[in-house]
């Protein structure tokens, strides 16, 4: 029997739990040559702000052991550019398109969310209150309970579809932040964004990134992300979407066992542009091997006794 990979995130029914992470899959067309985007559970598109942003100066990337630092800084065409240039090309993809909403002020988040709310083929947003690469806003919203609650509540008032809030790992107690955004109206949380990090070139005695610090992603952060998903899932009733360093189907299953309802794949897309269909197929064969008919039975399936 073919196992069922279907999961639910609030109102969204995902054909499988594998989605692509914001900022690592472009808008989808970048990967069309490699596979049909409709096989995905969903696509989280690049961080979108009120106005066009050029992002941070080059260099924006540093390779690290089993990972990378980025300091892209939300380069994007702005919400109007997204609606006019990109949305028409991707709206018929046959998978859930979720816009990652970013900003420097609460007003900016509201502006973007309101405009996205009007788009028929975008069933959800992911509020990015965890970007470590912008001077104002971004991670600052996601690292304190009052500001995380304030921005979530403000956007909730204007946004009427599924609202996911993406949490920062750069906090001492992620469960506490998750509870606060749940209370402020979030329908799900994504755990985690990148870990604040830094790289130095010893030869030149200079920082590698133009911004000195950047966001760490890739397998290097997986154990931290897994721990945070586990802590968050125990603390809230809303679904948790797990991400951070997922490269294989086994990694994805570990996140489900830790309590995630679905996962996102980020940096792995750079190493293998066909990784997502492989992860989906790998989850299916794991389920056949373990005689698991419904993937929902894996969620929170960690055996601790």
């Amino acid at each position, binding site marked *: 029997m073919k196992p069922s990979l279907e999961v639910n995130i609030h109102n969204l029914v995902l054909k499988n739990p594998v989605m692509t992470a914001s*900022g*690592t*899959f*472009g808008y989808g067309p*970048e*990967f069309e*040559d*490699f596979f049909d985007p409709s096989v995905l559970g969903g696509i989280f598109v*690049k961080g979108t702000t009120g106005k066009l942003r*050029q*992002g941070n*100066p*080059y*260099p*924006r*990337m540093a*390779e*690290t*052991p*089993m*990972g*990378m630092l*980025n300091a*892209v800084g939300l*380069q994007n065409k702005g919400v109007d550019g997204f609606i006019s240039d990109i949305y028409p090309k991707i709206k018929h993809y046959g998978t859930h398109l979720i816009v990652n909403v970013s900003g420097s002020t609460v007003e900016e988040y509201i502006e973007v969310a309101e405009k996205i709310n009007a788009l028929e083929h975008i069933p959800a947003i992911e509020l990015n209150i965890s970007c470590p690469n912008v001077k104002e806003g971004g991670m600052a919203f996601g690292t304190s309970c009052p500001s995380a609650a304030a921005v979530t509540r403000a956007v909730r008032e204007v946004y009427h579809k599924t609202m996911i809030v993406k949490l920062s790992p750069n906090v001492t107690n992620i469960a506490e932040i998750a509870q606060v955004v749940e209370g402020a109206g979030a329908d799900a949380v994504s755990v985690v964004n990148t870990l604040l990090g830094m790289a130095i070139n010893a030869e030149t005695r200079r920082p590698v990134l133009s911004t000195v610090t950047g966001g760490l992603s*890739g*397998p290097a952060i997986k154990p931290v992300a897994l721990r945070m998903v586990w802590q968050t899932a125990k603390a809230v009733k809303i679904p948790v979407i797990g991400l951070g360093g997922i490269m294989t189907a086994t990694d994805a299953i570990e996140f489900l066992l830790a309590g995630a309802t679905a996962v996102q794949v980020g*940096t792995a*897309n*750079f*190493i*293998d*542009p*066909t990784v997502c269909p492989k992860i989906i197929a790998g989850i299916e064969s794991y389920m056949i091997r373990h005689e698991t008919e419904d993937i929902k039975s894996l969620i929170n399936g960690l055996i601790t006794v």
Partner: protein
Amino acid sequence: MKKFIHDFHIIENKDLNPGHFVLTLKPEVNLPPIFPGQFAEVRIDGSTGTFLRRPLSFHDVDYDANTITLLVQRKGDGTNRLAVMKPGDTINMVYPLGNSFHIGSSGERALLVGGGCGVAPLLYLGKILAKNGIRVTTLMGARSEEYIMEPERYKGHGELLLTTEDGKAGTKGYVIHHEVWRERNFSFDRVYTCGPDPMMKAVARLAVRHQVPCEVSLEQTMACGVGACLCCVIETNEGNKCTCTDGPVFDPNDLKNWLE
């Protein structure tokens, strides 16, 4: 242009000098169209210090033999790992990526200027230009005689000029010191260049002075190679552009602060 992800088998791995080697690779399928200036994102297995793929230009493409070659400079862990790979080993590549050099019209004269490993894409470019009836002159700048790489292959489709830093072969100095740039010698319709940024900037300024179009091929650090991560940007007069999709070939007039 459709992109592919394929495994290639190493046919040959040849050292040219202590710093450079040439890999000849064959895929299991027929090669798709590849244009001069395009590159591949090469996955480097068996090197713990290498997580991301490495961008490498197509040095040559031989459709009859169904092979491609890469000219690689040993830099760090990734390229040093490639250096010790053997015939029969497999390398996974995402390709062909990026834009390509503009091919002018028959009867034109082109000057191709490469510094160090920057000559890599200029071999295939020269071959295609010559095939299109363009007269090709390659100007190669090397550290010393030992670093003049595969001169015969460039002579196969045109003229080869040399500079070395000690002057033991060709003109003494850098590529910009070659006499070809003197007013009375310069008779080219187009200049192409690849190499270190300061060299390309100097070459681009010379092309501007001679009032001919110029194309430069950039090497920004990359993560994805397909336009998804926005790590490889270069500042242009129209804002940041991706070297992996809008480039690697650019008109220096479009690049911010390049001709000053």
